[in-house]
């Protein structure tokens, strides 16, 4: 017994010394709970990431936060104090990422979030200095939608969204921009992810007879309002958000989703992009890697956000290595500086150009309008 524990102690001591020489990446994803459909492809993506960057070994420690803020905070502290990670990647969803900002800043460790809200990195203050993120801001996506509505002559529009942070965030952005664009928002309704019926909301929306309807939900739950709209005979345009951009949505929604418009990251329709588009090559590279491991058609845009986080890191590490050894305070600070200095990085979701005031760094090249035709995503010009 004593012999065993001695061996174990020696072994773990060995592991710790080795770990100090490696770059340790702490990953936090929501692989279970309500955000599991986003977190699982992200988790799968980390398994595909390079195990060496610039000659240094990279160790990924992947933890699950169960889509729960308390667990996210607890696991972030664990990664920082026990595993002494050099960088935190996560979390999948906005509430968790916001809670983690304070902890990462306190430990002076850079953090790359895979959640959508602009508030995670904006404004860049003393705490958010340490925080970066990869997904497009909601506002970028909602301007794409309103622009498309404008161009197709929509005058009145109705909104139905999740009754959570996702739906509220969209409502705030969308209602603001719609007003600027001279469109009248005639109805605003909410529904829950787990609802079995949205007939009431849909009837109310249809009684206002809008030209277009925006459904702000993520994943397959967003199919329910659309199916109800078709069932009740709605003839206008239907828009979805980039939250539905995975193949499960097409499977569940079926023919009721024909003709729907949505903005999405270029990775969704990478193969259809013109060769001149700089994002095409980098996006196809990710798709090939992911589908090789998980089968054709398995790729989703959410996993690509994790991939982009990995690309940001791989791009920043060589510069940081010149200033400090992994595991040291200097290395973490240098890594932060290098991340902020990211220039013209071609990733799966766009081109990253970070500055001291912009810790997202994506521009218009990070979104395309997509139409669902024949059960497939079709890029619009």
């Amino acid at each position: 017994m004593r012999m065993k524990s001695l061996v174990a102690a020696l072994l773990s001591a060995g592991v710790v010394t080795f770990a100090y020489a490696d770059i340790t990446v702490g990953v936090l994803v929501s692989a279970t709970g309500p955000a599991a459909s986003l977190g699982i492809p992200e988790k799968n993506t980390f398994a595909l990431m390079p195990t060496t960057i610039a000659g240094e070994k990279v160790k990924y420690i992947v933890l699950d936060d169960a889509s729960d803020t308390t667990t996210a905070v607890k696991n972030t502290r664990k990664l920082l104090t026990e595993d002494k990670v050099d960088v935190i990647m996560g979390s999948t969803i906005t509430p968790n990422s916001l809670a983690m900002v304070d902890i990462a800043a306190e430990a002076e460790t850079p953090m790359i979030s895979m959640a959508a809200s602009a508030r995670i990195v904006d404004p860049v203050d003393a705490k958010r200095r340490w925080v970066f993120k990869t997904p497009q801001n909601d506002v970028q996506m909602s301007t794409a939608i309103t622009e498309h509505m404008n161009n197709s002559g929509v005058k009145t529009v109705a909104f139905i969204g999740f009754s959570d942070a996702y739906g509220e965030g969209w409502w705030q952005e969308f209602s603001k921009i719609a007003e600027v664009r001279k469109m009248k928002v005639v109805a605003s309704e909410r529904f829950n992810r787990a609802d079995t019926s949205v007939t009431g909301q849909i009837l109310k929306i249809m009684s206002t007879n809008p030209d277009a309807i925006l459904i702000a939900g993520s994943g397959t739950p967003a199919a329910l309002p659309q199916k109800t709209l078709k069932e009740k005979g709605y003839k206008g345009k239907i828009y979805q958000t980039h939250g539905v951009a995975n193949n499960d949505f097409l499977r569940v929604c079926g023919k009721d989703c024909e003709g729907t418009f949505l903005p999405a990251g270029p990775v969704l329709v990478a193969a259809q992009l013109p060769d001149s588009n700089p994002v095409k090559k980098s996006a196809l590279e990710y798709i090939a890697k992911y589908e090789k491991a998980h089968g054709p058609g398995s790729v989703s845009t959410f996993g690509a956000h994790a991939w982009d986080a990995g690309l940001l890191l791989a791009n920043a590490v060589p510069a940081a290595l010149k200033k400090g050894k992994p595991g040291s305070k200097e290395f973490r600070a240098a890594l932060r500086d290098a991340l902020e200095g990211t220039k013209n990085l071609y990733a799966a979701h766009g081109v990253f150009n970070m500055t001291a005031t912009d810790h997202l760094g994506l521009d218009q090249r990070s979104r395309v309008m997509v139409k669902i035709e024949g059960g497939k995503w079709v890029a619009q010009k």
Partner: protein
Amino acid sequence: MDLQIALLLGQDGIVNGAIYALLALALVLVFAVTRVIFIPQGEFVAYGALTLAAFEAGKTPGTLWLLLGAGVLVALIDTVIAVRGGNPGRIKRIVLWDLALPAAIAGLVLWLEPATLPLAAKVALSLAIVVPLGPMIYRLAYQPLAEASVLVLLIVSVAVHIALVGLGLLFFGAEGSRTTPFSEAQFNVGTLTVNGQTLWVLGASCVLIVALYLFFGRTLYGKALRATAINRVGARLMGISTTLAGKLSFTLAAGIGALSGILIAPITTVYYDTGFLIGLKGFVAAIIAGLVSYPLAAAGAILVGLLESFSSFWASAFKEVIVFTLIIPVLVWRSLTSHHVEEEE
């Protein structure tokens, strides 16, 4: 709001209410017989629906392995108890029910290629997989604690619920599924359009309720369950096995849950965790009935369905708030009108 909208909302509320009614009946049944507040009731809804969806997608559902695993576990425990108790004659029964039956179902599923079968056969196979899980869960989680307090049983229920939700995520993944409707027919009644599936839900609920009524009123096993519900000790003195009553009530609860899931899967998208919220609404209805009265539970369920449907029209952001707040006035009313008997420990 005009009459047509009111009618549409009413229709929607009654269809949802019918499902809540079935679950409320199952909750009342399980509580009356075993004193278990059966939170995992909703998981059977999800398991039933998603097992059927897996068949339609041409996959082998994970619930099949759960059935086999649970069967082996139950058989092991029961065999040890039978041998220790000097009662090896029981082993034959154990092997038959806990090993041979799941193995036969598994053989059937793997041999038949369910994707090519007609819908009715798929439904039957789904039920055959999910329903035996009910008594097995009773055997594993509740039977050793059958005499414990309601609170302990409730805590066990929470644990079982979390375990089953986790397994559901493992088996079916995070995304939801829909199944093909039983009937694509549409009927026009005045200005109202009624789907075939809606009629299926209502018809099946009515048939089940009548069947339960006949079961409790006319059959020996049904009467045994009622006797156990009224007085456990008395029922035991009359030679009714409380273990059998527990297993039987869990079988019924699992059957009702799985069937509800199969009925709603074509109307709405079902997720691995959908069952919980549906089960909770059934629970609100069961509370309205004080966890004792079947007709009141059914009426309460229709009330919950209608309330939900109309509140989703008037104030969609507060829909769940309104539905669950209903419990408070109901509890006040119940505690004022019925006199409370402390549970004997």
